[in-house]
Each structure stands twice: as C-alpha cells, then as structure tokens.
C-alpha cells in the first residue's frame, strides 16, 4: 500500500518526515517560517502580495474621500478657494517635508535589513517615528488653532469672521503640553537608553522609541507655534472682549460678521458669501436642495437680523419635515430635537478637510504602532537577509501614508 501511494503521489513524505528536496537552505525549520508554508521564499511572496492587496484596499478607501473632494470642488470651486486660505501653507509644507524625510529613512531601513545591518534598521526606524510624531505635533497645533477660531467640521463650524472670544482656548494649553512632552519624552528616551545599555535591548529600544515619539510630538508643537501664533494670542493681542463674546455662543452657523482683517492668518477671505448665502438663500426660498445651495453664491448679505434668522429656522423645520420623505410609511417621530437649518459654505470645505486629514492622521498613528513593533523585532535581532518581510511591509505601508499626504497637501493647502 505504501508504495502504491508513492507511485501516485510525487510528494509522499508524511508530514514531519525529513525532506530530501534539498531546500533546507531555504529556511526549512527557520524560526520565522510558519508551519503552513513550504519555505521562506513562499512565505515572503505571500506576505508581500498580502501587503500590496492591503495597500490597494487602502487606496480605494481613500479614493472615496478624494471622489467626494472632487465632486464638491467641482460644484463649488469658489468656496474651496476662499476657505483654504485658513490653512497655513508653511505648516503644510513643513509636514510634507517631514513625511518625505521619514519615507526616505524607512526605505533606507529596508535596505539595511536586506544587508543584515541591524543597527541601521533601528536608527532609521526610530528616526521615522520621530518624524511621524513631529507631524502629529504640527497637526495638533493646526487643529487646535482651527478649533479656537471656531472652525470645526460640519455643525462644529462656528466661524464668524472675527476672533472667537472665549474663556478657554486649546491654544493656551499647547505650550504646556509641548514642554511636558519634551521633558517626559527626553526622560523616557534616557530610561530606554539605560535599559538598552544594560542588556535589556528590546525593552530599551521600545521605551526609547516611545520616548522619541513623545519628544518629537512636543517639538512639533513648538515648531508649529513658531510659525503660527495661536488664536488665543491673536485675540488677546487685539485686546477685545465685548462684541465678539456673543458671537461665540451663537448657534452652529453663527451670525455673519464682516470679517475684520488682521494679520495674514485670519483672512477676510472667509468671505461672508460663503458663510451666509448658503444659510439665507435656500431657506428664504423654503427649498433645500443642492442646486439651491449652489445658486446661493450671489451678493454677500451684510448682516442678517436676528429675527430673520429665526424665521429661517422655522422654515427650515418645515422643509426638513418634508425633505426626508421618500420612505412611504416614514414615521413622524423622526424629527431631531434640534432644528436643523439649511446652510452651505466654508463649513463644507472644512468638513472634508477634517475628515480627510483625520483619517490620514489615524493612519499615521497606526503606522507609529507598526513601526514600534518593527523596532522591537529588530532589537530582538529577528531579521536577517533571508527574513525581513515585516520591515518591508511596514515600509510599504508607510510610503502609502506618505503618498496620501503628498496628494492632500496640494489639494487642501494650495488651491487656486
């Protein structure tokens, strides 16, 4: 029976029996070879193809956002041009350079893995981590600055043309956060270095990496602050109080204010048109369709009187009661507690901005985790010229994250 089987099957060794095919040099019994692969080569091919498919998936994930961006920019080019002036080009450029540098470093790290150069893998990856955290530090300043200005996504868009006057600004806390990050990060780095030199290599490098992240996050904040004064500072420099105080408490869409020009940062270009027309025109007509919102870029209304606004809200409620119909037996209990008023304008640009950069930032954070994992494995000396798949894959992922930003930067910051 046994030789019958041999006749029929070219590979008849029962599992566990030694292979005589002479590819032991391909890593049979290699500690990193999973049991279901024939050899390291097959495992490498599988892992790499898997990563490419994952990246394809990522590209399609982002492509939905890019498609949405395209549609809205196509429909409302002037909104995009106006609103984008609120983004700080210098910071965008800084972040672009930071990410490019990190991509270069990680590519170098992959090369080092192929050459069995553990030390360079570690250095390049820690450098990449530093860049990633720096990027996030800069983004933190950008985001908090927007928030303090009243610029958020969708309903959180409360920009009124002037500085928001509030008791509490994120911006006030950022220097503290920066200092603490730098101090704590430096201490953690130091601890990691001690560990690493005391033969606790893996723990040391991982701790060091975390320290570098915290430290560079703080540095990113400092860097960004050098470029861009915070909203809080601007507001105080203006030394105001009264008139704007009210506007801060205004409902989501706020009341349009003639934008006071000050500094290059808060341009008047958040034109009254974009913030107000979308609110006034469709509601005034009592119809809430996209086309109407589109039509709405006509003369900028100066100031809408408060009563008028209320009337609009009331109308909007009526509209809303009908608009979502479509469903036959739609229940009547649907109305949301808060009345929704029609609006269109810069809020839409910033919605897209925050969603896209936010999703991108989430990818950066995932990348930081992945790179730290590679550092840990590299510190444990698990990689070699035969087996460096994780280094390669994380590197590919990082390039993609980088690439997405390379598109986001001009699309968001450099619109004409």
């Amino acid at each position, binding site marked *: 029976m046994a030789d*019958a089987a041999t*006749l*029929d*099957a*070219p*590979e*008849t060794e*029962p*599992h566990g029996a030694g292979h005589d*095919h*002479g*590819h032991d*040099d391909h890593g049979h019994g290699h500690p990193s070879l999973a*049991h*279901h692969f024939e050899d390291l*080569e*097959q495992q490498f091919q*599988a892992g790499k193809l898997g990563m490419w*498919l*994952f990246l394809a*998936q*990522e590209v*399609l*994930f982002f*492509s*939905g*956002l890019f498609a*949405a961006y395209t*549609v*809205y920019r196509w429909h409302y080019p002037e909104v995009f041009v106006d609103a984008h002036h609120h983004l700080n080009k210098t910071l965008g450029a800084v972040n672009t350079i930071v990410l490019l540098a990190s991509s270069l470093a990680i590519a170098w790290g992959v090369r080092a893995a192929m050459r069995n150069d553990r030390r360079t893998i570690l250095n390049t990856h820690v450098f990449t981590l530093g860049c990633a955290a720096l990027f996030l530090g800069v983004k933190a300043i950008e985001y908090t600055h927007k928030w303090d200005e009243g610029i958020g*996504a*969708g*309903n959180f868009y409360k920009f009124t043309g002037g500085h928001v006057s509030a008791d509490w600004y994120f911006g006030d806390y950022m220097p503290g956060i920066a200092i603490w990050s730098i101090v704590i990060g430096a201490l953690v780095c130091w601890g990691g270095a001690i560990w690493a030199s005391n033969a606790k290599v893996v723990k040391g490098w991982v701790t060091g990496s975390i320290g570098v992240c915290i430290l560079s996050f703080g540095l990113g904040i400092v860097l960004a602050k050098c470029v861009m004064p915070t909203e809080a500072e601007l507001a105080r420099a203006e030394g105001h109080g009264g008139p704007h105080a009210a506007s801060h408490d205004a409902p*989501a869409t706020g009341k349009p204010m003639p934008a006071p020009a000050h500094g290059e940062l808060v341009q008047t270009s958040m034109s009254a048109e974009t913030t107000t027309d*979308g609110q006034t025109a469709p509601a005034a007509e009592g119809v809430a369709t*996209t086309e109407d*919102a589109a039509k709405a870029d006509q003369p900028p209304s100066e100031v809408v009187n408060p009563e008028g606004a209320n009337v609009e809200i009331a109308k909007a409620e009526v509209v*809303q009661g009908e*608009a*979502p*119909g479509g*469903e*036959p*037996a*739609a*229940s009547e*209990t*649907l109305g*949301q507690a808060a009345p*929704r008023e*029609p*609006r*269109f304008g810069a*809020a*839409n640009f910033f*919605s*897209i901005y*925050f*969603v896209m950069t936010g*999703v991108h930032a989430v990818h950066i954070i995932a990348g930081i985790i992945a790179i730290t994992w590679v550092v840990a494995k590299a510190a444990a000396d698990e990689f070699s010229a035969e087996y460096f798949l994780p280094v390669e894959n994380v590197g590919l992922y990082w390039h993609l994250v980088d690439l997405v930003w390379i598109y986001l930067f001009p699309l968001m910051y450099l619109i004409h």
Partner: protein
Amino acid sequence: MISQSREHSLLEAITADPSRKVYIPQGRSYLQNPPGTTFWQGVASWVFTLDHKRIGVMYLCGVMFSFLLGGLFAGAVRMELWNGTPDLLGDTLQTAQDNYNQMFTLHGAVMTFLFIIPSIPAALGNIFLPMMLGAKDVAFPRMNLASFYLWCSGAIFFIATLLTSGLDTGWTFYTPYSTTTSTSVILATMGVFILGFSSIFTGLNFVVTVNTMRPKGMTWFKMPLFLWGIYATAIIQVLATPVLAITLVLLMCERLMGIGIFDPLLGGDPVLYQHFFWFYSHPAVYIMILPGMAIISEVIPVYSRKHIFGYTFIAYSSIAIALLGFLVWGHHMFTSTESKLAAVIFSALTFTVSIPSAIKVFNWLATMYKGSIHLNTAMLYALAFIIQFTIGGLTGLFLGALAVDVHLHDTYFVVAHFHYVMMGSTLIAFLAGIHHWWPKMFGKMYNERLAQIASGLVFIGFNLTFFPQFILGTQGMPRRYAAYKPEFQFLHQLSTSGYFVLGAGLVMAAAVLIYSLFRGKKAPNNPWGAATLEWKCCSPPTTANFEIQPWTGSPYVYDDFVFDPDEGGYVEVLPDLHRSAAVPAERPAVPATH
C-alpha cells in the same frame, strides 16, 4: 462520462488487487481534540484555533444563525402583507407601518451583510479552498481568525441596533432619510463597516492563498472552478468593500456632525451617496453570486459523471464578471437624476455583464448533456439554481433596459428579481454546497431521500413566494409599503403561503442534516466520486488536511473512480500499467534549488 464497461473493469481490477486502490490514511478529525483534553482546553482550542476548517465551521454556525434571524424578520413582513391594511405589527396604523419599515430593513440588512456575503466564501470557502488547492492552510491563518471575530463584532452591533431603536432606512441606508431618522443608524452602519473589514480580510487571504500557496503540480488551469469563482469574488471583496467602508464613515460623520456631504439641507449631495453605495453594492451582488456559481460548477460535473464543459470559459467568465461588475452601478440610479447619457451608458454596460453569466449557464447545460445524471440532493439544488438563476438574470436584463426600468424601479418586480438571484440562486447554491460537502465536513451521511424531499419543498416554496411578485411588480405594486390595494391581495397571499412552504422545506433540510450528525452513517472518503483534492483525504479531514500530499490530476476526470461496495464510497484506482507509464511525465520534476 464513464462507460459501464470501464467501471466494470475497474471494479474487477480492485477486487483482484486491492492495493490498486489509492491509499488514503485515516486520522483524527479536525473537529476533535487529542484524548485527555480538558473541557476548557477544548473550548480554547476552538476560540483560538488557526485551522481554516474550524474557522469555517464557526462561520457556518454564525451565518446560519443570521439566516434564521433574517428569516424570522421576513416572516413578519410576509404576514403583515397577508392583507392590505397594516394591522399586524402594531395597534395603530402608524405603529404598524413603523414596525413594518423596521422589519423589512432589518431583514434586508441582516440577510445581506451578516448572511449572504460571508455565507459561501467565509464558511464553505474557508473550509474547502485550501483543501481543493492542496494547501495546508490559508496564507494568513491569524488574519482569518481575526476576520471571524470581526464578523462577530459586526453581528453584535446589529444586535445592539435591534435592542435600541432599530433601523428603518432600508438596507441601502439612503440619504437624506438615513441622516434624519431617529433609529440607530450609527450602530448599524458601524456594524456594516466592521463586517466590511471582515470581508476584506477573507478576500485578501484567499487571493494570496491562491496566488502563492498552490503546491507543485497545481497549475492555474488545474484548479477546480470553485477556486476560480472564489478567487474572482475575493478580488471584488478587496477592491469594492473599502469604498463602502469610507461611505459609511462619511454617513456616520454626517449624522454625528452634519458635515454636509450627503445631506442636501447642509449643502450635500444625496445622489453622491447612491453612487458610492452602488459602487460597492453592485460588485457586492457578484460577491454573492460568484461563489454560488462556483459551487454549481463543482456539483454539476460530479453528479453528471462527466468532465465540465468549457472549463476555461467558466474560469475566465468569473474574472470577467468580477471586472465588468465594477462598471454598471449606475443601473440602480436610472431614476435618481442621473444624466441621460450616463443612464444610456450604464444600461448598455449592464447588458455586457450578462454575457459571462450566460456563458456559465450554457456550459453547465452542455456538461449535463448526455451525462449520466444522478439526482442526489446537491444536484437537485443545482438544477433549481439553473432554473432560478436564469429567471433572475433575465429579469435583471429587463431592469437593465433603461426604458423598462423607469416603470419597474422600486416595484415588486425588483424585489422578485433580486430574490431570484440572491435567494433562488446564492442560497440554493449554498444549500447545494452544504449537501455536497456535508460528508466531508462532518464525516456523516444524511438521509438522502428526506433531503431530496426537503429540496423539493424549498423549490416549490421559493417559486410560490417570489414568482407572484413579478406579476405584482408589473401591475404597479411598489416595494416597501405595508398597505396595498385590494386587487393585489390574492398575489400577496400566494406569496405569503409560499413563505411557509419554503420555511418548512428549510426547516426540514436543517433537521435532516442535524439529525445525521448524531445518527448518521459514517461517511466514506469519497461518497460521490468527485475528483477534486478535498475528497482525497479522510472524512472528516485531519488538522493537516492531507497526511499524504495527493497527486493533482484533472479535477473533472472521473475515469479512475469507481464505487467500491466495501468502502461504501468511491475509490480512486491506480492507473494500470499502460497509464502509469504516462504518469511520471505529469509529475513535476523534483524541484531544483530555486
């Protein structure tokens, strides 16, 4: 097809010399743990298993549970429709209608996202893809397990939706209604989002497995057609699902923050949502049907005892469907302010998709032609598939024709169309697959006669439920209404009666199968005489799948298989001298160092 005389001589050969039966070593079933395993170790061995077969079995249980749940919702819908006044699901007209909206939504969402999309690929595909390939496992076993747990978390979100305020948007979550309704849209979309990643993981795993894990000798064109179908499906899963994922993220943001992307009141474009949704969901209908077609391509040749006709055509048509499927999403939006030009183009493209589908049907028919057809349960389901898929596909063409669709859109005609393809085809293929592979999966034979009767009930019940809906649709009955005019009542009542027949058939099929687990006869290695690799190991297989790496012959040549009364199943007979001379040539050379 094997001639009588050949069968006879094979039988004689093995009676004379039993060692000519291909030896298949028996071993411990993958379902069992080594003796001495404690209860909790046993539980852990399932919870943390990396064995693709166990993961597949867990998926099977999960999707069957979802199917039951979705089926109960469907029952509520059908019973409400027994008469034209909404009275069953609530005391007042309003509550009855509200609950009706919830029922059809939950039915559709559960059936689509929890059941039909993972059904064939993640359950049967997981178990059989590596085995049919001759591999030990899928490429990324841990990712495979992760995919299952993602599925579970998605299911938990659905249950949370149910327990909170439910869902009444329809399974498509169309905006702007979905941004304004007070039901739990966020929970449900979060669930779908997670299920999407579960599906992506499965697909990614399968593509990589097929590309890189084929053992020597398993060339692309020696792969069983099931693998081609699953491969094509997997490509769609990887490329289409992320678009749904981001769409749902945007929808959630729209509800949470009013970002004004889909909500017209906030300057958004609701039609953009439809584009995004169908960019995924049309390809997704092929995620549903391609695996079904793949099963049918396995079942038909086995029970016709004849080589599949047009192997390469079937293989390539799967890929063609997968790719063309990305180009036709606009046919769901003919009436949603789509430009005339776009509508005409989408309509024309829709017609092209039906070509590869028809190619498959013709090839199956040609395979059966002059075959010696065995009407086993799996084959009965396959025949039902051919009939129902033909009806479903052709009515898809009616709907793809622009002028016709303007009238039929959002009527029961559409409902009947997609039930013929989703339930009448995919579910039926799933049942065919379950009956075909049951002996291999669980090592038990079920009662064939009772299973055949159940399949008959399913066939009658299904057609009784859904055929009247075509007529209802052409007469103008719109979908998603709890109330209707008296003239529609008779057809609605036919349909509701059909639900009960169908339900009875399904319950009976389940009972027959479950009973076999306890009382069934032990299954032989190869009860149906199939030639694909999964039958070349013991039933149920061991954890390693193959104790001896089987020889990869043609998956559809049945010449060397003969029913051996001693084994109670088919055995492969080693080639006689004449043929064995030819065998070494087909063997791969001993691999040199590469």
